[in-house]
């Protein structure tokens, strides 16, 4: 019962709000700065591939948690000093769909 009401609450929560300017900045950050480990095309490098194929099965919340808190024992750093929860969720969601290109 409690579990299901939590679920409803979660479903009622608005999707993460990220404004258009911030979005462009986030796309740049992911392509350029996450790209230093995951590759600009996100096909992987020292970090694992962040392509839709690689991430299809992974829950967005757990990916957002990886982004915010990093992964101990690996080079994946915690980005919470630079990204909000909404940013991380937005990024995780977009990664799963196929991340947007930077507009040049």
């Amino acid at each position, binding site marked *: 019962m409690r579990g299901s009401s939590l679920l409803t609450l979660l479903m009622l929560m608005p999707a993460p709000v990220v404004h258009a300017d911030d979005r462009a900045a986030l796309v740049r950050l992911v392509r350029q700065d996450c790209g230093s480990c995951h590759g600009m095309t996100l096909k*992987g490098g020292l970090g694992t591939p962040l392509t839709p194929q690689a991430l299809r099965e992974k829950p967005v919340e757990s990916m957002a948690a990886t982004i915010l808190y990093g992964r101990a024992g690996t080079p994946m750093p915690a*980005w919470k000093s*630079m990204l909000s929860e909404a940013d991380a969720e937005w990024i995780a969601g977009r990664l799963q769909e196929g991340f947007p290109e930077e507009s040049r």
Partner: protein
Amino acid sequence: MLTRLIGFILLLLSGCAQLPLRGTGDLGLVIERAAGRVAIVESSSNRILGRVDGLGDLSHASVVFSRDGRYAYVFGRDGGLSKIDLLRQRIERRIMQAGNSIGGAISQDGRLIVAQNYEPGGIKAFDAETLELVADVPATWGSAGQRSKVVGLADLPGQRFAYALFDAGEIRITDLSNPQQPTTQIFAAGRQPYDGLVTPDGRYYLAGLFGEDGVALLDLWQTEQGSRKILADYGRGSERLPVFKMPHLRGWAVAGRNAYLPAVGRHEVLVVDTATWQEVARIPVKGQPVFVIARPDGRQVWVNFAVPDNGWVQVIDTLSSRVATTLQPGKAVLHMEFTPRGEAVWLSARDDNKVSVFDTRNLSRTATLDAEAPSGIFFTARAARIGF
């Protein structure tokens, strides 16, 4: 009739190919990584001479030069290896040699180009002339025979190459003096080596460790002694700061008798005496150091940083072991390269779409060049240096 025709064709060809005579000692490349393109630059006049495109994914691209300084070999992230003629400003040859690559090296005699790959993990050697594959040395390790990502590839005297295995925690030396029969020595290094360097004299190989504090050191003149750890516990058990970008190591770390190395997870440059390999100083800096590069004469060491501090560059005075100057040369400073004798340094500012040239004596900007999202800068003087 036929000979006449051939003569005519030759005449035509030589007519098209006429190039003004010039050397290449003051030339270089700037990677325009998002565009898959390089700019060919000249440091005597601070100019872009031309551009070559069609080079694929150039994130983390790196370059080595043929020993005559005419050809640049560009290693792309996507496994592309391109040989560029700096004078004709065109691609001579291009191959796809791996799925995911992070750089390469050239042999002592200039005949072999060696790529270091993440996927499939290992090194591959190619004929420098034709880019034909001559040796494939997988970085296989462990009982299950998995392959490790390779980092820190450096050329050594004697047609050998040193590199480190990120996943296996090893340093390996592969001797390619007979490319048909490569032989490899293996040394335990420590947890997660992230990059490596050979000292400018070719004697020591260092692998920086990510998974623990310290640097693995191998004396290449006495490899039977194995690798040992220096700068162990520089973190002194305190919690690490996040590392938003991996530091890069190369022989430019050495200035005089000291080596200047980036700490990992600490905002410090560590100074170690290369005669004793003891720590002699730690210099607090603005952020997580990425490149720590000595001016060729060793009087200054320039440092840039990972995000969010990548708008800063600091200049260390090696006499006093202190930061002498802090500069803000542009947005997202990704790389720095000194001219061969160090009167100038070129800096790429990715988010400003600019390359700036600074006078290293008075630290003023002397030129600015437009380049699209510039990253690495590589001058042909690297052709003559061990480890470049």
